[in-house]
Every structure is written in C-alpha cells, then in structure tokens.
C-alpha cells in the first residue's frame, strides 16, 4: 500500500471504522512509515483534544421548560380535550344541580304537602340510622318480618327477601309518616342501609315512578296496587334503581 492510498484510510482507521483486514493493512503500513505514523499521532491528538476539550454546550435550564411549554401549546387537542372534559363535567354538574333544584322546587310549588313528605322520609331515614334503631324486628326471613307488621298495621306490607340479588333483608320497623304509622322494611347493601316505606296510597291515580336526590340521599317513589312506596338510601342511584326494580317485580 502506498502512502497516498494509506492516507485515505487514516481517518476511518483512527475512528475504528475499518474492518479487521483494512485495519491490519493500515497498521502494517504505519509501522514501517514515519510520515504516516506521525499523521496517525496528529489525528489522535486532534480527536482526543476535541473529545476532551470541554467543547460540548449544555442546554440552559430554561430551554427544557420552554420546549415543554411550546409542546403543550402546540398540542391543543390534548389540552382542549382535557379542558373540554373539565368543562363538560362542570356543565353536567350545573345541569344536574339545576335539574334537582328544579325538581325539588317544582315539587315544592306543585305540592308542598309532598315536599314535606319527602323531607319527612329523609328525616326518618336519617333518624333510623342515627338512633341505632333501624329495626324493630331483625330478621332476614320475610316470613318473620311480614307477620310482625301484621299485628301493628291495618295493611300488610311486602317484605321481599332480596338477599340473593345483593340486597339483604335485615328487618322491619314501625315509622310514622303522613300522620299515620307506616311500615319501614329495611335492606342492606354492603354498608348501606335502605329504607322502604310502604303504606296504602290515598291517591287513586297511578303515579309514574320518579326519583330525586336530597341531602345526599337518593329517593325513589312509585305506587302500585293501591300502595305507595318510598325507597331511600345513600346508595348510588343505579344500585338503588336496581333495588326498586326488584321490589316492583
């Protein structure tokens, strides 16, 4: 190999980019050639000078922040979807609050009597849990609960056992609503108690089932076969609906 040929390979040789045969050929030439040997030394001195010369620039700390900010700004979809969801949830809350207020207000204006009843139902439900007096008769057997009411009321409330469906019958209690004693059938779903108030309806027309939330409690109301039913619990509405559906079956 001539010096000219060799010189073309010196840079890849120093950089370790030659295959072993090429590398060996250069080595052999360099060993016997003072000029090429000094070229190799010069190249190595230069390369290590740059490598060790502290020539790297380090990104200033604010650059990372700026880049992140610019990317956030340039990503309106992600950002806006985030904000859209937030606004959507805010809007949903507003609608919900409005709807509830409307429902309750409507009830109040339509029938202050019924509004008073709903308040009483909530109060009774709360009291039943506060006073540690949720049941007068504690039993998961509907054949125990149902007859228990028999001697105390002039009607026979249902006491369906829904244990298999996840609503455990835990007993019955006498309560007082609309100036009369009423049956409270008590169910439990995990830690949540459910009161079902039942008494003969004074109204002849069948009201469609309706529901509302008050003070954090969900209330579902329906009438059936001359009886009025009020189901109340802090249980979430879907589960309480499920309970109502099972009771109506």
């Amino acid at each position, binding site marked *: 190999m001539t010096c000219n040929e060799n010189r073309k390979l010196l840079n890849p040789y120093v950089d370790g980019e030659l295959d072993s045969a090429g590398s060996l050929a250069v080595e052999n030439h360099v060993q016997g050639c003072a000029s090429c040997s000094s070229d190799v030394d*010069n190249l190595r001195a230069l390369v290590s000078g740059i490598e060790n010369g502290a020539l*790297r*620039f380090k990104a200033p700390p604010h*650059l990372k922040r700026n*880049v*992140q900010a610019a990317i956030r700004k340039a*990503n309106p*979809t*992600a950002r806006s979807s985030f904000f859209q969801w937030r606004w959507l949830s805010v809007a949903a809350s507003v609608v919900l609050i409005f709807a509830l207020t409307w429902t309750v207000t409507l009830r109040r204006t339509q029938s202050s009597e019924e509004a008073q009843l709903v308040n009483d139902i909530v109060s009774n439900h709360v009291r039943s849990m506060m006073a540690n007096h949720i049941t007068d008769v504690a039993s998961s057997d509907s054949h125990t609960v149902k007859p228990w009411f028999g001697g105390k009321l002039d009607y026979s409330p249902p006491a369906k056992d829904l244990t298999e469906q996840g609503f455990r019958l835990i007993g019955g209690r006498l309560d007082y609503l609309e100036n009369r004693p009423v049956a409270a059938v008590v169910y439990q779903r995990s830690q949540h108690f459910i009161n079902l108030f039942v008494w003969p309806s004074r109204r002849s027309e069948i009201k469609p089932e309706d529901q509302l939330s008050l003070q954090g409690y969900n209330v579902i109301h329906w009438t059936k076969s001359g009886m009025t039913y009020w189901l109340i619990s802090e249980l979430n509405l879907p589960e309480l609906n499920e309970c109502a559906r099972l009771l109506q079956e």
Partner: protein
Amino acid sequence: MFDQNELTAFNEAVLPHLDAAYNLARWLTRNDHDAEDVVQEASLRAFKYWKGFSGRDCRAWLLAIVRNTYYSWIRKRSVQPELTEDGEIDEVDEGIPSPETALLQSADREMLKAALEDLPVEFREAIVLREMEGLSYKEIAGIATVPIGTVMSRLARARKRLQIYLTNSAMQKSL
C-alpha cells in the same frame, strides 16, 4: 391528537437528548439565542412526527431533526451557509507547515473552539456528531443524508483544516 400518556412518552424519550440537540444546534448556529430557537422549533417538529417514529435511536432521530431545522431556518433567514464541495481529500497543505503533534496537544479550549467555528458548516456538523456525540459514520450519514463515503471525506477534510488552523494559531501565538 395526543393524550397525556403519549405526551409523557414523548417527554421521557426525547427530553433526555435535549443537551445533545442543543450542542449540535449551538455549533451549527454559533450563538446561544439562535441555538435555542432551533432546538425549540426542532422539538416541535419532533413532537409532530413522534407518532411516525418507530423508535430505534431517539437521539440520532432528534439530531437529524435539529439539523434539518437548522437548514430550513438558515434558508428562511436567507443566509447561505458556506457550503464546500464534497470530494476527495484535497491537497490544500502545499506550502503550509505540517502540523506537529505537540502543538495540537497544546491547543486549549479557546483555540479548539475558534478552529471548529471556522469550519464550513457541513464539516462542523460531521465533527460534532463524530467527536462529541460519538456517532458512527453510518449514523452520521443517516443524519446528514449523504453516503458514508462523503462522511469519511468530510471528516478527513475537516480534521485537516482543524490541524492547519491550530498549527497556524499556535505558531502565531509563539511569535
């Protein structure tokens, strides 16, 4: 189009190479402010192309974007970079004293910096990618979109120029 997870993935993959990106941009532009602009613009481009990136070597990918961003930035400013024709290693060292190893070794940071800044931009980028980022010829070829042979000749010519520059300034200093 980007959800939070993808944004996080991008940040985790790309931001660690911000120093490498800045270093290349800084050597290409030769000043802090422009380097920051280029990196910022390049990061936005990277973000835009992130979904199409298969993700083998994120650093090389980002460096290629930085380089492209620099060239379009320079075109926008209608400042033509001093491009040099690629070719065989030129014999420019006629009549110029051959470099001495001792002189090259004594070159300090300021001298090296001045020598590098004096290089034509495509030589400068080859040196930065090779010497500072430790990239292979193949990787540099990929970033600069030139054949490997061109990378080889650019590096050889760049080093020749650096040696000459350093030898001259060392000799001037000693006068």
